[in-house]
């Protein structure tokens, strides 16, 4: 059943992405000040939204693990964190390429960029710890603590463009600004990509949850083999 859901999600995600690529490249015009490079925004922003939402969901499941001590919750948290980390990398790389044209540099130690970089370091630590620690309970407990620690930085990332008005553009989406900062057609393209990336992200999370389940089975069998 889960396999079918994964296929359906991947298929729907691919269809929505194909539709979005058609709209973004062939229907929407260049932006007045940014020219054609603005199109990177339609991937950069959705990847950031989905990844940050993913980190929030991971924190929720980490909290559930600490409360219920059920390793299945830890599996969901790990799966969500890993997929969110991949999307955060997409955000960082696309943002850097956009910055090369608009700012003239690949990277700037701007509060938004710096806090995002710290966020990536924390979650890469999370993923490395999970590979190193063999004991499932210790692994899950430590992961939950790191997830909470990382999410504090996610809040800083989110609010940084309001707290410090520096190089990175301020909020543009209507839900944060009330409208007027971005053309509605461009905003619509970004939201469609949020949907597409979210569909693919859920499919990847389900695949990773299967793998976490297999890993739990492996741990159980190792313990059995050890007793035998």
């Amino acid at each position, binding site marked *: 059943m889960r396999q079918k859901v994964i296929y359906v999600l991947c298929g729907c995600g691919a269809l929505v992405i194909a539709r979005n690529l058609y709209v973004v490249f062939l229907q929407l015009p260049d932006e007045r000040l940014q*020219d054609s490079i603005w199109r990177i925004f339609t*991937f950069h922003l959705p990847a950031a939204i989905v990844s940050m939402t993913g980190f929030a969901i991971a924190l929720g499941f980490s909290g559930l693990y600490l409360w219920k001590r059920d390793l299945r919750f830890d599996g969901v948290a790990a799966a969500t964190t890993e*997929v969110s980390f991949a999307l955060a990398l997409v955000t960082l790389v*696309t943002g850097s390429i956009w910055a090369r044209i608009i700012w003239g540099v690949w990277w700037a130690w701007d509060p938004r960029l710096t806090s995002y970089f710290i966020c990536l370091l924390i979650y890469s630590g999370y993923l490395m710890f999970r590979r190193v620690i063999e004991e499932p309970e210790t692994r899950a407990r430590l992961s939950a603590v790191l997830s909470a620690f990382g999410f504090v930085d996610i809040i800083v990332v989110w609010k940084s463009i309001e707290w410090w008005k520096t190089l990175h553009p301020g909020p543009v989406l209507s839900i944060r600004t009330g409208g007027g900062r971005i053309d509605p057609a461009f905003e619509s393209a970004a939201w469609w990509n949020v949907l597409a990336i979210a569909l693919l992200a859920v499919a990847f999370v389900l695949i990773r949850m299967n*793998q976490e389940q297999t890993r739990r089975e*492996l741990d159980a*069998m190792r313990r059995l083999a050890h007793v035998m």
Partner: protein
Amino acid sequence: MIQSPAWRDILTVRRRVLLALFFVFPLAGQQAIMKGRVTDRSGAAVADLKVTVTNQATRVEHEIFTGPDGSWSLQLAPGLYAVGIEKSGQGAFAVQDVELDANSTHTVNLRFTRAAENRNLRYMFYGFAAAWIVLAIYVISLAARERALNRQLDGLRRMIESEKRV
């Protein structure tokens, strides 16, 4: 009638002139028009742009500037031409080989692309390519991990079963 040498010279000259006219007049009539319009990527006319038309055989260059509506027109002899466009300070250039037939009008519409536009398009491509490469690497790593986990699980199952039999 026997013609005197003087008359013979005049006739020879007349014949030469007629012969020359016979060949020169049709050549003078073999003119063709090359015209066109230059627009940018959004379809707007680009004015004051230098259009250079070069005869590929003789290397003779003809230059003209586009008008306010981006149009230009030149009267040329038939032949194979290269058409180039450039605007000072913006470094754009586009060339197209054009075969111009006698007594014909050939329209060459060109699209003017600024150097900055080209760079933007290149970086936009890098951005999208980078996003897809990161996702592709992640999907490949997922598949590799799936295979590795299944291999480990099968190995452990076999080991436990063989232990049980013993």
